[in-house]
């Protein structure tokens, strides 16, 4: 399995992390849980969001459109946006790895329709000004939700993958939620006012 694929790109960090991981396990309960995890967490290799060396499924042109749609849905505000979170690359990899061919074909055709309809109504999507792009994404989304959307059309597949990619990314999780790797306790009834950020990763 390539679960540590991020580490693989930085071998020395990967090895160091593995050594610390084993050390913590050997120490077992002699080292306190949060302390052990702090060591492990601190040694994660850095992600490089947004850097796509080679695409898996989408063409570079398709990826540019998908990236723009994702960023319109999840823009950079006081927290990172879809592009900062590596969502475009995530969508490309997810389409390659998670979907059977008919779903991928539907996505590609829907993306072409999205582009063609923009062109037909005046201007290619990426050549429009930012406000017009947002309007176009919103109207496409509204139309999709109003119609039959099972199986999901392009715009809703993109939306689902953008949300999944964003909220499983490091910035998406840590900037929008309380991420507590080792909670050590469970409290069943806590006033939101005492919870810091109101949404916890779970």
């Amino acid at each position, binding site marked *: 399995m390539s679960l540590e694929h991020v580490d693989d790109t930085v071998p020395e960090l990967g090895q160091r992390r593995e050594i610390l991981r084993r050390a913590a*396990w050997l120490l077992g309960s002699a080292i306190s849980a949060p302390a052990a995890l702090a060591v492990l967490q601190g040694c994660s290799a850095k992600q490089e969001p947004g850097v796509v060396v080679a695409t898996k499924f989408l063409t570079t042109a398709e990826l540019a459109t998908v990236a723009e749609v994702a960023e*319109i849905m999840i823009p950079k505000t006081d927290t990172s946006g879809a592009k900062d979170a590596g969502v475009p690359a995530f969508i490309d990899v997810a389409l390659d790895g998670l979907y059977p061919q008919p779903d991928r074909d539907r996505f590609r055709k829907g993306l072409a329709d999205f582009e063609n309809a923009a062109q037909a109504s005046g201007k290619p999507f990426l050549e429009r000004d930012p406000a017009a792009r947002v309007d176009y994404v919103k109207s496409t989304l509204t139309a999709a*939700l109003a119609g039959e959307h099972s199986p999901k059309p392009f715009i809703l597949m993109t939306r689902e993958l953008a949300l999944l990619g964003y909220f499983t990314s490091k910035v998406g999780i840590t900037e929008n939620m309380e991420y507590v*790797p080792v909670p050590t306790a469970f409290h*069943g009834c806590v006033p939101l006012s005492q919870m810091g950020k109101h949404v916890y990763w779970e």
Partner: protein
Amino acid sequence: MESNSFDAIVVGTGMSGGWAAKELTEKGLKTLVLDRGRMVKHGEYPTATTDPWDLPYGNRITQETRQRKPVQTRTSYPTPANQHWFVDDLDNPYTETNRFDWIRGYHVGGRSLLWARQSYRLSSMDLEANAKEGVGVPWPVTYDELAPWYDYVETFAGISGNHDGIPTLPDGKFLPPMELNCVEIDFQKCIADKLGRKLIIGRVANLTAPLTHDQSPQRGTCQYRNLCIRGCPYGGYFSSVSSTLPSAERTGNMTLLPDKIVYEVIYDSDKGRATGVRVLDAKTGAQTDYFAKVIFLCASTLASTFIMLNSVSTRFPNGFGNDSGELGHNLVDHLKAPGVTATVEGFTDVGYTGRRANGYYLPRYRNVGKDKRSYLRGFGYQGRASRSGFGRFYDSDLVGTELKDAFKEPGPWTLNLSSFGEILPNHLNHATIDRTRKDKYGLPVLNIDAVLRENERAMQKDMVDDAVEMLEAAGYKDVKVNGNDEYFPGLSIHEAGAARMGANPKTSVLNKFNQVHACKNVFVTDGSFMASSACQNPSLTYMAFTARAADHAVSELKKGNL
């Protein structure tokens, strides 16, 4: 072959095999423990501390996994974080006359690493039902005989729970209970007031406090990460890898060999006893025989059934110990029905912190006391209340800043009920050997043929209707039955009963101490022995019977009876 001879052989290292290994080695037996899968030592859990962003594909099941594991991915478990614990179905085939979901992990620790840790005792009601109703064969063991063994395994394993005082779900030796959350407390009160039904916190094999003994120094308390299925580096929950196997190892009496596929019990007709097991090395294909005075089959219900059916001799032409013709038959699982969910309004200013590795439990109330239904037996529910997450935005039209602002507040509370019901033992539900097909080791494969029948169909209707009734009685909104949840036998991963125990050798395979009636030095202590399954999660019962069987085996050895 002196080096291949031991006092005892244990086949399998999961829930039951771990207990057999611990008990037999602690009582001084030189014990060979065999597992067909790879070695896993406590702490060797590759994804246990992996952050969510380091898991590929948003931790969704990939197409590659679906292609290699078409059966295992009938469940939602084999995600990138977990898929290494589930078998490659193409390399480990079986055939299905009717669909049967055989969900397995071939590695040391087996499914004890993956279980949901729910730990409930059977009661006298459960153990007396077959005799009272004329179903299957009567259980040859009473609750009073079993209770001290439940005490024993609960104390060692560490079971968290509340003393609820419910006669049909006996209390045990508990560590402190986990908490219900605010919405669950509301639901508990509503169904008690309006329907007289009980909701309790789940009884779970996670340590909510230090163990009350000093035999497991490698184990720490639950950290409320709720990532148990990945393996817990803190030893926060019970598995054979974290608990029983380390105890067996410390005795110095255990030889644990991974990658050893046991495919036959060797029977010596002159001695009238089993002398050992035949083994293929999973890596080299080399064949070896190992010998011992006593053999424990703990390979899991269907795997032990396979070994016995495949052990054909002049004395046992229809499979080892199969004088009754019941070997492979009476296969049960726990019945599921579509899950039911609801949205709970209010409670907007409260939440929970920590990730509780547990939910609530609604013990069986159907056909209990004065309640009488058109079907026999009953079911329990499990579930939890939680805040909905980002999935609620998949089909919404919020975009941009509006979407991001909406996400900063927790989603509405939802609450769910999913059920486990009892499937009646039936001779027609069975596994046989399919000799027309071979696996990559050249071994024949198992064929499974089990279907739901009238009693189960009638019960499933109640399982859904009652859930809807309770959620509506509580005043919750948007009550939904998940119609996509079609259940096929096996999916509850509680398969049992294929070598049932009973007092009569003509109608059962094992006696009350899990000994093969026709060959007393072989014990079968995985789910195979279950004369009926009740509706409680079964692992605690396998632990208790295994410890009891090991005690009996050593006592009989000392008396010269084996």
